[in-house]
C-alpha cells in the first residue's frame, strides 16, 4: 500500500470508512462479541490454517483454474481471464466461506448451525459442510424462493439439513436472513450462524472476506504464470451482498495499478422500479446488523430488490463495497437481466462454459466498456449455471 492510498480494510472498530459496525439487538451481543474476540486468533492458528487449506484442496478442489478465455478475448479485443469458481465443489465460491466458518464454529464449540439462503447456493454449501462435519443444520429460506428453487431445496434435504420457510415480509432472502437472526436470538448458546455473504454485523464482513480471499491469493500467482505479472489491469466481479467480489478484490485493494469493477444487477433497468443496483438506488442505512448502502423508502423502510438472478437480489451491499463505491476505489456498473442473459449464452457458445446468471452479469460489461487490446482483465466466474437451467430454458425458449 502506498502512503497516499486510503485503507480499504476494516478498522479495529469494525468499520470501512463510515460503513460497517455492529447494529445488533443486545440479545445478539454475546454471540457476536464472542466471534469478534476470537475470529482473528482462530484464523491465525497454524492448525486451523492447515485444516482449512487441506479441505479447500482435497474437498473443494482448489486451486480453481485461471482460464484464458481465448474466443471471448478475440471477440472483445482484450485479454480476458476467467477465475473458475464455478468448478468448486457445490458449484460456486460459496463453499470457501462455509468451510472456513464450519471450522470456526467447531473451534468455538458450537454444534448447531443456521444459515439463510436465497437461491439455495449458500444453503447447499452450508448443508454440505454440516454433513461433512456431522453438525445439525437449519437453513432459512423464503417461502417464495423454496417454490422457485426446488432442486436446491431437495439437495439440502439430501444433505441432512432442515429447511424452514421464512413466512414473514416478502418471503425472500431478506426475510430468510431476518429469520436466521431471530433463530440466533432464540438460541444464544449452542448455535453458530453462517452468514453467506460479506454482510451482517462486524466481524462477519471481514471474516467472510478473509475466507473468500483465497480467490485473489490464487489469481496473483496464477496470473504471474500466465502473464509474468501478478496484477491485472482490471479485476471484475458481480455483487449482490458481495462475497465473491470481496474475495476477488481482497489482495488487490491496495494495488493502485489494478482497477476494480463491481457489477450490480440492474434488473429490468435502473429506473424501472425492478432493480437491485444498490450503489445507484441505495443510500446509507442499517440492514441486518451493519451500516451500508441500502435500498429503502424515504421513510427508512427496506424495499424489495429485483433481479433475474437470485444471488444478486439483495437490497443492500456489503459494507466494504459501500466504502469502495463511496471512495471511488471501485467502478460500479449495472447490467440488466437481458444483457446478463445474452452474455451468459455467449459464454456457452464461445467457451463451452455455462455460467451462473450472477456471473453472467460480470461478463456483460464487455458490451458496455471498451478495453485496450493489451489490457489484462480478470473476471470472477463465481458459479456454474446448472442451478439456472430453468431460467435459461424459460428465457430462451430452449
Amino acid at each position, binding site marked *: 500500500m502506498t502512503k497516499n492510498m486510503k485503507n480499504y480494510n476494516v478498522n479495529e472498530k469494525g468499520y470501512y470508512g463510515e460503513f460497517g*459496525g*455492529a*447494529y*445488533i*439487538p*443486545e*440479545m445478539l*451481543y*454475546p454471540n457476536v462479541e464472542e466471534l469478534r474476540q476470537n475470529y482473528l486468533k482462530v484464523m491465525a492458528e497454524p492448525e486451523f490454517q492447515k485444516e482449512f487449506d487441506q479441505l479447500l484442496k482435497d474437498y473443494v478442489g482448489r486451486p480453481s483454474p485461471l482460464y484464458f478465455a481465448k474466443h471471448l478475448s478475440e471477440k472483445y479485443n482484450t485479454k480476458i481471464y476467467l477465475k473458475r469458481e464455478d468448478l468448486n465443489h457445490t458449484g460456486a465460491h460459496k463453499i470457501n466461506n462455509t468451510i472456513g466458518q464450519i471450522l470456526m464454529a467447531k473451534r468455538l464449540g458450537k454444534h448447531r448451525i443456521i444459515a439463510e439462503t436465497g437461491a439455495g447456493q449458500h444453503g447447499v454449501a452450508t448443508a454440505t459442510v454440516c454433513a461433512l462435519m456431522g453438525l445439525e443444520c437449519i437453513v432459512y429460506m423464503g417461502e417464495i424462493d423454496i417454490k422457485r428453487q426446488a432442486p436446491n431445496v431437495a439437495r439440502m434435504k439430501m444433505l441432512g439439513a432442515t429447511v424452514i420457510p421464512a413466512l*414473514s*415480509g416478502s418471503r425472500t432472502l*431478506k*426475510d430468510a436472513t*431476518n429469520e436466521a*437472526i*431471530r433463530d440466533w*436470538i*432464540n*438460541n*444464544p*448458546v449452542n448455535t453458530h450462524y453462517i452468514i453467506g455473504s460479506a454482510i451482517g454485523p462486524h466481524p462477519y464482513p471481514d471474516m467472510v472476506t478473509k475466507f473468500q480471499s483465497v480467490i485473489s491469493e490464487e489469481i496473483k500467482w496464477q496470473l504471474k504464470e500466465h502473464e509474468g505479472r501478478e496484477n491485472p489491469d482490471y479485476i471484475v466481479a458481480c455483487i449482490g451482498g458481495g462475497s465473491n467480489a470481496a474475495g476477488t478484490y481482497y489482495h488487490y485493494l491496495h494495488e493502485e495499478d489494478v482497477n476494480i469493477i463491481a457489477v450490480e444487477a440492474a434488473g429490468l433497468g435502473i429506473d424501472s422500479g425492478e432493480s437491485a443496483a444498490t450503489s445507484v438506488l441505495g443510500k*446509507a*442505512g*442499517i*440492514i*441486518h*446488523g451493519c451500516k451500508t448502502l*441500502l435500498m*429503502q423508502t*424515504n*421513510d*427508512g*423502510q*427496506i*424495499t424489495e430488490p429485483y433481479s433475474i438472478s437470485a444471488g444478486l437480489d439483495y437490497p443492500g451491499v456489503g459494507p466494504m463495497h459501500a466504502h469502495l463505491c463511496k471512495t471511488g476505489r471501485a467502478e460500479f456498473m449495472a447490467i440488466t437481466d437481458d444483457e446478463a442473459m445474452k452474455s451468459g449464452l455467449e459464454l456457452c457458445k464461445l467457451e463451452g462454459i455455462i455460467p451462473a446468471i450472477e456471473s453472467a452479469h460480470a461478463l456483460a460489461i464487455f458490451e458496455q466498456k471498451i478495453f485496450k487490446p493489451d489490457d489484462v482483465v480478470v473476471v470472477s466466474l463465481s458459479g456454474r449455471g446448472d442451478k439456472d437451467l430453468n431460467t435459461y430454458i424459460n428465457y430462451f425458449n430452449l
Partner: protein
Amino acid sequence: MNRINQKLKEDKKLLSIYFTAGYPNINDTVSIIQDLEKNGVDIIEIGLPFSDPLADGPTIQASSTLALKNGMTTEVLFDQLKNIRKSVNIPLIIMGYFNPMFQYGVEAFCKKCQEIGIDGLIIPDLPVDVYHEKYQTIFEKYGLINVFLITPQTSDERIRYIDSISNGFIYMVSSASTTGAKVGFGEEQTQYFERIGNMNLNNPQIVGFGISNNQTFTQATQYAKGAIIGSAFVKHVTNEGANSIDNFVNSILN
C-alpha cells in the same frame, strides 16, 4: 424532571404497554394511548413500525407489516401525536428500529420528540457504544431518556456499563428470545431476576418479554419495578379490536 423519572419514583409496580402505531387501523394511535392511560397503565411504548423487525416475533412482525400497509410513517406518527400532551400525562416512549430514525435524521427526530412531549426511546438495534459515542449528547439535549436492554446472557461487567450510561430504567429481557416467543417464567428466569436485583444498580429494572397476564405480571414485578407487555396486548387488539382496552388492562392489574 422527565416524566419517566417521576413515574419511577411512585411507590407502586409499573405496568408498561407496547402497541404498534397504525395497527389495526391507521388512526387508532391516539385513542389507544388515551384508553391505556384511562385504564391505569403507567408507561406507554409507541411502536414505530419497521419493515424488518429483527428482535420481534410473529405477532409484532405482522402488526408492523399491516401498520406500514395502512400508511404509517414517521411523519404520520409525529402528526398524530402533535397534540397528545393536551390529553395524556403518563410517560410516552417511542420504540422502534434505528434505520427509520437514522433516515429522518437523529437530531431532527429527537427534536420532534421533545416538541411532542415524548420522554424516551427504545431502539433495540442501536448499540450502547454507538449511542454513547455519537448520539448521547443529542438525546440529552432534547431531554430524552434512552432505554437499553439486558438479557440473561449479558455479563455483569456489561450490565454495569449499561447502568452507567442509562438515566431512566433498564429493560430487563426475561429470556433469550424474540418478542412473544415464550410465555411465563421458570426457575432460570427467577434466578436471573434475583441476580440482577442483587447487583443494586442505579437504574430500576422493568421486565419485558414473556409477560401476558396477571400471573406473569405479578411474578415479574416481585423482582423488578415494573413489567412490559407487548405481544399479548397486540394479540388482544387483533382479536378484540382497539376499543376493548379496559378488559385487557383490568385482566392484568386485577
